[in-house]
């Protein structure tokens, strides 16, 4: 019984180390191959569309609702204190610094990351990746690099959309329901926001994009078994991306808090 438990723990720890090591190896290889010719634009643009354009509706919708919710929840507290003026600044700062980046990253991880794992996983199961290798095409160069580049470039752009739409959601509630004038709202919003708020928020998303790309590609490459394996890998990919995104967000928040006080 105890032996079993220790073996189980050891196995889990070992698999964690394998996971970290594998992700890092994949990341290093992808970084190296990004700057190595030949450069193919077509797959990159295709992935950009999948990550950016196609995710925009759902990201906008979620960001809008988050803005509305944040304004209402803040109003609930602020109206007791009689300081409705601060709703605008709270909404702006929390969306631009934190909620915009993380909501975008989570939505994209669920939407795009899962798709990448499923796609690469079924390619792996049907031995298309082995076929690529026999054609002397590096699967990392051919499959991972465009996805990694597309995710780390498109995620900040998507975050900008999410920030703007979230602030718009807060504006809609404050102007129509809480009788704060439109000019007042925009003035307080942009008076409170600092450049560092915007740029630390955007800098995080580049790393979130990398996390999504590497975790989902790693899980896709590691599929074992048939269709069942693809399903398991997809689940692992989403769960691991979520955990890593939130853990790294915690790290970055602490980092920026102490670096740019």
């Amino acid at each position, binding site marked *: 019984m105890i032996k079993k438990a220790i073996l189980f723990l050891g196995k889990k720890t070992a698999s964690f180390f394998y996971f970290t090591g594998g992700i890092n190896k994949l990341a290093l290889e992808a970084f190296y191959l990004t700057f190595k010719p030949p450069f193919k*634009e*077509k797959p990159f*643009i*295709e992935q*950009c*569309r999948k990550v*950016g*354009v196609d995710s*925009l509706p759902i990201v906008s919708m979620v960001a809008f609702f988050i803005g509305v919710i944040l304004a209402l929840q803040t109003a609930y507290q602020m109206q007791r204190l009689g300081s409705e003026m601060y709703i605008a600044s709270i909404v702006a700062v929390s969306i631009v610094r934190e909620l915009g980046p993380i909501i975008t990253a989570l939505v994209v991880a669920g939407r795009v990351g899962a798709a990448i794992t499923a796609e690469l996983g079924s390619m792996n199961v049907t031995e298309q990746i082995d076929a690529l290798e026999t054609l002397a095409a590096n699967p990392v160069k051919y499959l991972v690099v465009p996805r990694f580049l597309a995710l780390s470039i498109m995620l900040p*752009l*998507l975050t*900008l*959309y999410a*920030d*703007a739409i979230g602030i718009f959601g807060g504006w809609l509630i404050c102007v129509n329901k809480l009788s704060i004038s439109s000019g007042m709202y*925009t*003035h307080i919003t*942009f*008076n409170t*926001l*600092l*450049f560092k708020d*915007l740029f630390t928020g955007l800098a995080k998303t580049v790393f979130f994009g990398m996390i999504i790309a590497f975790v989902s590609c790693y899980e896709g490459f590691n599929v074992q078994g048939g269709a069942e394996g693809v399903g398991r890998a997809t689940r692992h990919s989403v769960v691991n991306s979520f955990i890593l995104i939130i853990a790294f967000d915690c790290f970055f928040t602490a980092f920026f808090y102490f670096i740019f006080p």
Partner: protein
Amino acid sequence: MEFGKTKLEFKLGLFVLFGIIILTAFILLIGDFKSLGVRYKVNCVFNFVNGIKIGAPVRFAGVDVGEVKALDFMFIPEENKTKIKVGCLIERQLKIPADSKIWVNTLGLLGEKYIEIIPGSDYANFIPPNGSIAGKDPVAMEEVGEMARNIALEFRDTLAKIKNGEGTIGRLFYDDALYKELEDLVSDIKLHPWKLFFKGKEKPVSKSK
């Protein structure tokens, strides 16, 4: 390979363009409220600044007009003293008279510190950009406490003296002599009320008519 032909590229271009527009709008809107180009610097020299911090607001006649951007030490050889130079960024269009009063004020008792400027009346001379002005030193909380303590101590001594019957008020409170005299006077007047109407011959009241 051809570029810029497919619908896909059109959509992507639109997406990126709008993203860049949003970024520019954010930067311009944030920058508009904080643009450094439309401000000028005024140095306020203090002996004591009571813990003011960089970023603290500057108020001119009660309106926020700028913020503290720099805190430096400055040795003044004439006075043989190290002073604090507080660099404030003030909005360009604001003219501060040279005889304005400047000091470090506090919002509430323990609130945020800020620089208060009460405009003077000398509208012929303004503080030029990068000019200096001497600030009035704020009173440290310790000094206020010390002063209150001194007052309390002195008051306690006085009270002790009064209790011991020293001094005029002490004797008024604790010495019965005056009370007895008054009692005698009242009883005397009760007995001989006509004494009140008695006019002394030897003392003429006044020489006037």
